[in-house]
């Protein structure tokens, strides 16, 4: 049975083209991936991300448990702050990537991918026995709406008395939007400034419609899964299931910045220490295709006359107006500037390993 978010009717009324994604019926696009992508880079876009999972950890040892479960340092995470992190298996493979929201030392919210929520919850439960805490999958209670883009702050500010201009990236607080209590973080999956808004699912429609109406003068548009994918790819944010999975490690994926090997023990730590000691045999790199033909997920990559890898995410990049992609390449072919070939329907098209992220916004302050 396909699941529906509380905004399902709104998507259909707005002309969203509905598809199945990770067991959910969601809009892949409304006006089209290019105008939606550009709106987020230039003004603002609104995303329904209610399919994401929310697992709440409460109890005396809640922080200790999440610290053992994930790679980032939860003990030194401030209350009302969040960070990007991963859960690993014992081999150092990624069970999922997630955001940890610390409410207090005794209460944390783990925001996980939709397609992996059930697997993640089972994984958490199976490792929680030694800790004094309770693990609850509260995904059905929450709606999540993301407002992203340079105009996001100004649109949201018009709807809340809480001052947003001094709210740093990766902090969160409970604010009222037209009287609806929401937990809002300054974060997102687009490479732009923006906010992720969590509210009780029964208020989702109210918050969604308010943001669309309030943002209309600033050019806000509803955005679908297609734009979400191209935006995150331009910013080289990993997509679980494509760029990272149970067989790839954070070090190979270039996500070592989120891993705190010195913080104390966590699941997968020994495997990562061994990898670090022995050196990496492959790395996730960004490439640019030097041809009009886009590279697509799964296309083979050749170097030195042999197939050396596959595209994990590949697409035309609407803002950069280039064909870009990500792939694991043997370390010897992974340096920036290395020439590679992509097999596009039997034809080898030239590409080059480039510096990532492909797109980085110019920050007004920080």
């Amino acid at each position, binding site marked *: 049975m396909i699941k529906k978010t509380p905004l399902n009717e709104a998507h259909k009324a707005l002309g969203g083209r509905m598809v199945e994604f990770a067991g959910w019926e969601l809009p892949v696009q409304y006006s089209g*991936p290019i105008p939606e992508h550009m709106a987020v880079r230039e003004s603002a876009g609104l995303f329904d991300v209610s399919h994401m999972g929310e697992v709440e950890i409460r109890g005396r040892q809640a922080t200790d448990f999440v610290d053992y479960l994930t790679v980032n340092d939860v003990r030194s995470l401030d209350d009302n702050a969040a960070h990007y992190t991963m859960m690993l298996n014992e081999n150092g493979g990624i069970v999922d990537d997630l955001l940890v929201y610390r409410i207090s030392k005794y209460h944390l919210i783990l925001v996980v991918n939709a397609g992996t929520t059930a697997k993640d919850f089972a994984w958490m439960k199976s490792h929680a026995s030694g800790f004094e805490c309770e693990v609850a999958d509260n995904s059905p209670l929450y709606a999540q709406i993301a407002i992203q883009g340079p105009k996001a702050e100004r649109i949201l500010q018009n709807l809340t008395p809480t001052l947003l201009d001094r709210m740093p990236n990766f902090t969160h607080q409970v604010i009222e939007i037209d009287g609806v209590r929401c937990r809002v973080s300054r974060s997102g999956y687009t490479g732009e400034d923006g906010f992720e808004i969590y509210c009780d699912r029964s208020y989702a429609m109210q918050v969604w419609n308010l943001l669309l109406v309030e943002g209309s003068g600033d050019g806000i548009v509803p955005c679908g899964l*297609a734009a979400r994918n191209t935006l995150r790819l331009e910013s080289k944010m990993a997509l679980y299931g494509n760029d990272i999975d149970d067989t790839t490690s954070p070090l190979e994926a270039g996500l070592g910045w989120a891993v705190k090997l010195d913080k104390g023990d966590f699941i997968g730590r020994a495997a990562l220490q061994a990898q670090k000691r022995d050196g990496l045999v492959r790395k996730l790199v960004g490439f640019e295709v030097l041809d009009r033909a*886009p590279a*697509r997920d799964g296309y083979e990559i050749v170097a030195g006359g042999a197939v050396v890898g596959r595209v994990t995410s590949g697409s*035309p990049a609407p803002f950069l107006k280039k064909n870009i992609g990500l792939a694991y390449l043997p370390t010897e072919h992974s340096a920036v500037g290395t020439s590679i070939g992509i097999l596009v329907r039997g034809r080898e098209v030239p590409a080059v390993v480039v510096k990532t992220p492909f797109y980085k916004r110019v920050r007004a302050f920080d």
Partner: protein
Amino acid sequence: MATYPEDLYYSKDHEWVRVDGETGTIGITDHAQQQLGDVVYVELPAAGTSYSAGDSFGSVESVKAVSELYLPVAGEILESNASLSDTPEIVNSDPHGAGWMVRIRIKDAGELSGLMRSIEYGAYVKEEGGE
């Protein structure tokens, strides 16, 4: 709602053929371009290649997806639309005209009778839930 010119023949794969003597001009329908969204790349064959009816002769790509192009009737490629390499977006703006894909020498004009005409194609699209 899209309109489908009455002088064209239409396939179930959403390609059209305009017949001029032995020559057929092939493109994708307005319905197909709407479903596809903004076209960013079109891959077309070299002149001289021959195909049977139903063969894939190239592909058309949007940001999101790659779609195969299928030849509605058998023939030999005479010419590919060179302007699509620099301006693929004309497939969206003028699908039944300037956005044509290839011209072919039609091998067997009898195959045209297996294709749909305008009204029939319009009904077919509706049945597929497209309009």
